[in-house]
């Protein structure tokens, strides 16, 4: 059986984006068949980029919350863009066709893009799904304002949970900096293609 993770050297968390870094744009295929870039969004103030996927039970546990983020923040200028980072050969549940199926079934209101070369995943430094990046538009480009877990309560058992992404975007919307700019994201390691 193919162990996609073993052959390829892993990226340490140090290599990924941290708050304060500039984030690269992308041109990735959406489930609609068209490509999507952040540059397409002329009126957005920023973005909630979520590396997520079909197969991972943790990503599944967060799916409704990811959809809710777009419901809440797209109209306020911070739309969600979901990116599936995994190798569909090693993980067929994450195939493009299955992504299309899921996005349609759940009625995603946001792009669900496939990172076919995994170059964007590498650039952002995501290690697991789901991982969120809150980006803010500046005249110099897109700054990373938050990296990490969506909240600190996978199982939604704690009403007093810390909603990291919501708190970050709420702060940015009133021209403040997020108080928490990073957190660790417990999830399924990214399924890397073999070299």
């Amino acid at each position, binding site marked *: *059986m193919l*162990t996609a*993770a*073993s052959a390829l050297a*892993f990226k*340490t*968390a*140090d290599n990924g984006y941290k708050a304060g870094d500039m984030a690269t744009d992308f041109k990735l295929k959406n489930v609609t068949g068209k490509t999507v870039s952040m540059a397409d969004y002329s009126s957005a103030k920023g973005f909630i980029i979520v590396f997520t996927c079909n*197969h*991972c*039970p*943790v990503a599944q*546990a967060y799916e409704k919350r990811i959809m809710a983020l777009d419901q809440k923040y797209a109209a306020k200028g911070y739309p969600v863009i979901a990116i599936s980072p995994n190798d569909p050969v090693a*993980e067929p549940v994450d195939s493009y066709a299955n992504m299309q199926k899921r996005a349609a079934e759940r009625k995603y209101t946001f792009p669900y893009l496939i990172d076919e070369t995994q170059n964007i995943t590498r650039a952002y430094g995501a*290690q*697991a799904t789901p991982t969120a990046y809150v980006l803010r538009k500046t005249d110099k480009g897109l700054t990373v304002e938050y990296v*990490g*877990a969506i909240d*600190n309560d*996978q*199982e939604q*058992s*704690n009403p007093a949970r810390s909603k990291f992404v919501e708190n970050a975007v709420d702060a940015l919307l009133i021209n403040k900096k997020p108080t928490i700019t990073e*957190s*660790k*994201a*417990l*999830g*399924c*390691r*990214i*399924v890397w293609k073999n070299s």
Partner: protein
Amino acid sequence: MVLTLSVLKVNAQVKLITNAELQEKISKPDTLYIVNFWATWCGPCVNELPNFDKLQRVYKNKPLKVLLVSMDFQSKLKTALIPFVKKHKMQADVYFITRKSDQELIDQIDKSWSGALPATLVVNTKKGIHKFYEKTFSYTELNNIYQTNK
């Protein structure tokens, strides 16, 4: 969230542990500790678990302790973790780690840990060895880890 301890009393195969208890356990000298962090929801974790179990089996009379520490959903203990462990009859000790916050636990285990599973901690206090790996392990690789750090 209240943990139904009665569930775990019935099942001696999965022991509850806190991070503090884990750190105390693996700091004992004269033993090599290989701590694998896994979950039933993690496919690659489940695939490599037999390699860890085999290592414990092969070296069961040596100063090696393999600990399989589950980061499963607490709400799925009865429905996921315990049935899994019952089915697979493992040689190595299986633990469920209780925590208030995943983020806090991840940083306590190792500051460099991204939080992705699987991950493995290798500790030999007598030899001053403390290594953390974010990768899967074949049996050969685990055997090398044992030979290098024992």
